[in-house]
């Protein structure tokens, strides 16, 4: 098998793709000409902002125009695509002798948990992870290692200052470093009414042993447990960090906390793995290069756990060049391409890429790998976007002191249950 041979029938075709304008996609568009040279298949990549990319795809798929030959979409959208029959399972390609590169073995080469979470739906495989994202803890290693701080901290809290291993420590550290007069805050919550809030909150929820639905995989429906006692505890804990976050915290999403971190105003927070590069490595935008440490999210009653998210390569059913698209995706999943993409700010799903020497040099490699191991799925049902919307709204209300945590989560549970219908009764009924 060789790529040239496999691609011969598709020489000269142009395949078109769409994704979010992010470094890994930019990296991909730089790699594409190599592929064209090898195969004669031209790849055009459209780069849009996150929601633009999602909406464009929704419109294209639902109008059945077939403009895109493969798409790169966040995995939470998958349910919609699959149930509407918009995307193509890739097992036929994996079984095809002409197309399948025998050296490409996803069932061995990828983080299985992540792959299943990101690209599978109801036991069927629809693609491969474009990025495998997870969140972990960022902290200022220089502050935590500072002798004077250590002394003071020990005197006050009675134990040694170190990266937080559990949530109590996390809060203590946050409190300790909150010094508005010095322009320093213990943490930064992403409290804006925005998906970021939900993503961040999920880390607390999972870690406290809660979940939204009682289900084993993202594509499964199950009883609503979003208002479980664990969830309420997680939510209340989450808000208890608000005093240690800067005053504008209700207006933050990932953008702002990134900026705060880069400016060195925050001691620790929970943040995305693929954003790390811009804080820890890129000196043109960050003042804290070399002063950062990374670790998994602190442990709670639910154990050490991370919420996983990812963008996935998918092939629309209306695509006219599915095979060529598959060949390109397969090529992109190769070690070399993955490595280059990862070094340019991507987040690969291949452990062997993480293991490479270049990647290991990055200060956050270990934390990333650790998080990827414990990534937990979340609903990818067709209605999951609306579930998110409901939760974001209610959580935002709670943060703005309009409601108590219980009220907010009860209301969310009710709405989600109504949304999902009979498959999702409320496990903790509201009177």
């Amino acid at each position: 098998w060789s790529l040239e041979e496999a691609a011969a029938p598709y020489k000269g075709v142009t395949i078109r793709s769409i994704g979010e304008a992010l470094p890994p996609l930019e990296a991909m568009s730089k790699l594409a000409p190599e592929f064209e040279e090898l195969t004669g298949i031209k790849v055009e990549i459209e780069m849009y902002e996150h929601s633009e990319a999602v909406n464009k795809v929704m419109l294209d798929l639902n109008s059945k125009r077939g403009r895109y030959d493969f798409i790169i979409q966040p995995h939470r959208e998958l349910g919609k695509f699959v149930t509407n029959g918009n995307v193509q399972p890739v097992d036929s390609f994996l079984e095809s002798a002409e197309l399948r590169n025998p050296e490409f073995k996803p069932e061995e080469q990828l983080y299985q948990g992540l792959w299943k979470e990101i690209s599978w739906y109801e036991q069927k495989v629809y693609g491969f992870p474009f990025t495998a994202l997870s969140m972990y803890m960022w902290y200022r290693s220089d502050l935590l290692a500072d002798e004077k701080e250590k002394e003071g901290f020990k005197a006050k809290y009675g134990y040694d200052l170190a990266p937080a291993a559990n949530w109590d420590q996390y809060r203590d550290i946050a409190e300790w470093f909150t010094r508005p007069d010095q322009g320093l805050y213990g943490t930064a919550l992403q409290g804006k009414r925005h998906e970021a809030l939900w993503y961040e909150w999920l880390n607390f929820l999972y870690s406290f042993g809660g979940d939204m639905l009682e289900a084993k995989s993202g594509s499964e429906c199950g009883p609503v447990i979003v208002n479980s006692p664990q969830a309420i505890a997680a939510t209340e804990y989450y808000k208890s960090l608000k005093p240690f976050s800067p005053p504008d915290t209700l207006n933050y999403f990932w953008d702002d906390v990134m900026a705060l971190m880069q400016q060195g105003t925050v001691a620790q927070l929970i943040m995305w793995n693929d954003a790390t590069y811009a804080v820890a490595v890129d000196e043109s935008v960050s003042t804290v290069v070399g002063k950062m440490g990374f670790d998994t999210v602190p442990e709670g009653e639910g154990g050490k756990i991370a919420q996983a998210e990812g963008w996935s390569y998918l092939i629309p059913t209306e695509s006219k060049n599915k095979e060529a698209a598959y060949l390109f995706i397969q090529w992109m999943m190769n070690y070399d391409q993955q490595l280059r993409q990862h070094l340019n700010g991507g987040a690969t799903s291949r452990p062997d890429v993480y293991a490479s020497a270049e990647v290991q040099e990055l200060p956050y490699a270990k934390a990333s790998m650790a998080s990827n191991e414990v990534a937990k799925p979340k609903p990818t049902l067709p209605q999951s976007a609306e579930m998110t919307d409901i939760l974001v709204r209610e959580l935002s209300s709670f943060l703005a002191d309009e409601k108590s945590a219980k009220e907010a989560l009860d209301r969310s549970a009710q709405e989600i249950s109504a949304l999902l219908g009979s498959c999702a009764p409320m496990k903790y009924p509201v009177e």
Partner: protein
Amino acid sequence: MNRTAQISNGRFLLDRGASLPLILPATILVLVFLVGPFGYMTYTAMTDLSYANPDQNGAFIGLENFRRLVRNDPIFWNSFWLTIRFVLLAVSIEFVLGFAIAWLIWRFIERQRLLTTLLLVPMMLAPVAVGLIWRLLLQGDFGMVTHYLHKSGLLSQSSAVFSTPTLVMPTIIAIDVWQWTPFVTLIILAGLMSLPKPPFEAATMDGAGPWRQFRDILLPLLRPIIALVLLLRGIDAFKEFDKVFILTGGGPGTVSELLSIYAYRVSFKNWNLGYGAAVAFMVYLVVLIMCSIFYKAVYWKSADTGAR
């Protein structure tokens, strides 16, 4: 207005044959490209179409969506009243300020070409950019405006505009005023400049002071223009979206969830197209009713007597 204009009122310059080809392209364009889709939207509002829910594939359900909207959707009503307040406040402030600025320019500035152009700058920025700019300016930690607000003591050091629920809407209104006052200024200025001189001279001779001239001559002559500005601004304010979406996303909580944001969430986030269409239709209906009342009250009177 000079008499030339007066005597001709009621005389029809164009008969139907000549009018038709002039008015037809516009009408067709609107009918095909707006009324068509609008009709489709109206139909969608009576279906359960949703791209997100595999069970809802566009079955006709009559007025069910509307029933749910009116009876059973507190968020809609919250957004509704919020939007009404927003429109009334923003548009009236914009109108008063814009009118005053236009009047000052008209009255006192001879060489106003550059000045007017510069005044229009806020309007020239895309709403998306306006949202981003103000987000940067009002950011709690490194926003330039926030910094000076803190420094001047107008805002307590430990708070930020968009994290203080009570400040969110006033700020959004202020930004809207900043952005759209130039629009009012531009149109009113154009109106002022094409005002005829004779009636003002006549009023001067009749003994009317500046204020009476303003009230009795200028305002009535400008009435169609004023109505135009208020209508256009009112309608556009009703649809205000980009800025608020970028600035607050409707939050904190639902403090700034305008109708358009709500509609966006329903249609574009949740892909609940049927219900979203119903929301949109309600928005349309409300705007339509408000405009009709306003139009009948203000515009028709002057348009019909055709004094202009």
